[in-house]
């Protein structure tokens, strides 16, 4: 399948997609030159569903490749000081539901101070 359109159908979009698949010259495209590199940051929704002293489970519409540095922004976790730790995706990824994946993120080099703050955070939430 080369492409698809979703309802409600828009004639302009349909025509443009047809021009693209037919390699019509009117359909213009710019490719980044090989000697040039443009990188940007995409911000994707992410949810932490479980937390422990060694890491956490992160659900999102992405399947993280193993052993990559990651740094999601989870405002509710700011008091745990996990942002001070290096965080790395592990090799465990499972399908969650509807295009979402359950990713495992591990803390690298977490010290006693970090783990005690995580313990405090979890016990406080348990009491609420």
């Amino acid at each position: 399948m080369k492409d698809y359109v979703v309802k409600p159908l828009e004639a302009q979009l349909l025509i443009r997609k047809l021009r693209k698949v037919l390699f019509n010259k009117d359909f213009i495209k710019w490719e980044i030159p090989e000697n040039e590199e443009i990188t940007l940051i995409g911000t994707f929704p992410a949810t932490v569903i479980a937390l422990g002293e060694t890491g956490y489970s992160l659900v999102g519409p992405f399947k993280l490749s193993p052993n990559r540095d990651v740094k999601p922004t989870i405002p509710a976790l700011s008091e745990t000081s996990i942002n001070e730790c290096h965080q790395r995706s592990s090799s465990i990824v499972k399908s969650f539901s509807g295009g979402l994946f359950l990713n495992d993120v591990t803390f690298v080099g977490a010290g006693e101070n970090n783990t005690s703050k995580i313990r405090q955070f979890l016990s406080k939430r348990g009491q609420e």
Partner: protein
Amino acid sequence: MKTQYLKALIIDQDPAQGRAMALLIKDLFNKIHFEQKVDEIIKECNEIKPRVLFINLNVEQRTTNFEILSKIPLDGDSQTVVFGYTDSHEPELIAHAIEEGFHDIFVKPYDADIVATKINRFFQFEKTQPRQINYTPLKPSLQGVMGISLKLISVDENGMQFKCDHYISKGTPFKTESPIIQEIFEEPIVELMVTKTWMGDNYGDYFFFAEPVRSIEKNSAALRRFILRKL
């Protein structure tokens, strides 16, 4: 729980610290080798082919131990896992170690359960399936965002093609801001939607196509103007 035949090599110039690490991990490995002399490490690695390396970073000249890693004959496909251990919690040291290729760093005081969980996670033993890792479920769960680095490949009248280290699901909306976004859409932040995703020829390369979540007329005009300026 040893469910695979695993050999570990501890590289430590301090025999006392090396023995302490060996005691900590003894139940996880079938065989633990120990090496003090840097010159012998390459020979040892070639002979015993360890699946896991433990390197002490807590020596006077840390760079020496980072250099060891670059000399060790690690096969691209061997998936040898390299752990460092130290009594220092300096962020610079940990960041440097990660950049050099260490998979994880253990910081003193070592917690035997945490060390075991982290080691096991790399090998996906039965013991550490995700639900069995000692994480506490959070209810309600914690919402946030994840910033992922994207490499722009091309721009056409429909949208933009990106390359990424991670797989992104089709139908995912995301926001992005950068000078190029400002240049194309004349707006600092734009919401895009992933409409197509595929794997590259090289393992670990993912590509996706994203279309702006705005009116077609507004997008078309902005994209056409940008491409015509570039061509």
